[in-house]
């Protein structure tokens, strides 16, 4: 906006302002009504949905479902849709950071004096695209299944390990058979690629953002061994062929 446009805006604004009504009581009434509605909605949601409290946090075992609040679903899902490892950093931090900077600096690159939404096609297309992308990512994030179910056939010897795997929440990030997420590498045939020792090493000393299972190994070595055995048993032929690899 150049000086003339600024002056024109200020002039028109002061005319519109002079034609307006006083803040008190007109705007205050509306604000008050809206505050009452807000309070009503908060209390209604608190009564209807309550304040759920899951089982106590336990860094070692039991259900581990890394699900954020719904308003972070889109970030979480962004991570899952971008698969190539070289792009993961871009997904987790690059895209959100760039979007945030674009949002923050909006008044500095959108300098046209036009304010009417229908006369700002580029801004509107950008806004609609952003909203659609965020809504889409949030919805698929919300529809993701519970991360503690393993449906592939498991040989009797590995059932303990499968239970530990399900309870440890590996499926929150990894896929095993038809279950789990695609955030981390697919574990369905991990036994073909990594040996048992390598799997144990990865569990103890994982690459970020995977949490370490060292405390499980220290505090509950049997469970840890069962977990490693089960994961090492995940092989291609086991997934396709018979259940009984023993």
């Amino acid at each position: 906006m150049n000086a003339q446009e600024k002056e024109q805006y200020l002039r028109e604004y002061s005319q519109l302002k002079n034609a307006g009504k006083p803040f008190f009581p007109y705007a205050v009434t509306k604000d008050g009504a809206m505050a009452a509605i807000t309070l009503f909605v908060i209390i209604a949601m608190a009564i209807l949905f309550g304040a759920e409290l899951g089982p106590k946090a336990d860094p070692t075992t039991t259900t581990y479902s890394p699900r954020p609040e719904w308003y972070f679903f889109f970030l979480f899902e962004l991570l899952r849709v971008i698969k190539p490892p070289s792009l993961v950093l871009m997904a987790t931090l690059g895209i959100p950071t760039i979007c945030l900077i674009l949002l923050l600096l909006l008044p500095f690159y959108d300098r046209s004096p036009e304010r009417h939404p229908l006369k700002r096609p580029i801004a509107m297309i950008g806004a609609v695209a952003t909203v659609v992308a965020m809504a889409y990512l949030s919805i698929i994030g919300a529809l993701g299944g519970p991360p503690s179910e393993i449906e592939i056939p498991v040989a009797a010897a590995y059932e303990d390990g499968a239970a530990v795997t399900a309870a440890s929440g590996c499926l929150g990030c990894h896929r095993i058979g038809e279950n789990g997420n695609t955030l981390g590498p697919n574990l369905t045939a991990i036994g073909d690629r990594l040996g048992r020792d390598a799997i144990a090493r990865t569990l103890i000393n994982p690459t970020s953002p995977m949490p370490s299972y060292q405390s499980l190994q220290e505090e509950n070595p049997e469970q840890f061994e069962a977990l490693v055995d089960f994961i090492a048993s995940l092989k291609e032929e086991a997934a396709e062929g018979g259940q009984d690899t023993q």
Partner: protein
Amino acid sequence: MSKLTPPLPKFLRPAPPRPGEDNGAGHNGDAAPSRGEKLREDATEKTAQVVGWLDERSNLSPLLRANLYRKVPKGTNWFYTLGSATLFAFVSQAVTGVFLAMYYEPDTARAYESAAYITNEVFLGELVRGMHKWGSTVMIILIFLHLARTFLFGAYKYPREIQWIIGVVLLVLTLAMGLTGYLLPFDQRSFWATTVAVNLNASAPIIGPYLADFMRGGAEFGAASLSRFYALHMLLIPGLIAALIGAHLYLVAKLGTTAPPWLKPEKKSLNSEGI
């Protein structure tokens, strides 16, 4: 009284006296004022004295009058209530948060138990915790709607650029409140979600590892992390939010809210009914 009366909506304005009726104030010499009228007059006078005493020392009334009776532009509609509704949600979060803080203990051994105690034992505890939990959802929705309104109406343009920047920072801080508060009940879901979130931060280039160490209070997620999240959630972020809301509101009062962009001032100012 009539001098101080703000421009009221029509239905609230006192009807002008009709010919033949009393002259408004109630006594025109016929009868001595009744006891009720005298009490009312006394009360009005005492109130005026107290207000006068305060005003003489604080000189607040011009400021209050300028802000309360300032005009909002023509066309101001319900979409303009989204900002104040967000503020109200923040106040609700602050109030419920204070009550939760009376019982909550930020200690890994006690956090879950104290959250359970609030939920199951404290009078109205579950309601207050529910209001705090769902209040965050409501606040996030309102802040996004407020952002959408500002964007659609082009309200971020000259002269309100600073308003917009403060608003975006407030949005980020509100999301940070959501993230730090999520850990505090210390159940499985919140613990692991936060672990993953912090580890994601750790994978950021250059500052990532330092940021994650700062949030965790060390290399591992543990007791120090909980008190850190508690301090961030209770003191640092709400303080910043309150200060920035103050700046945001100061600018609202200073610059005024925008008019809807489809309204143009009429050339001939014929309508005097706007006042």
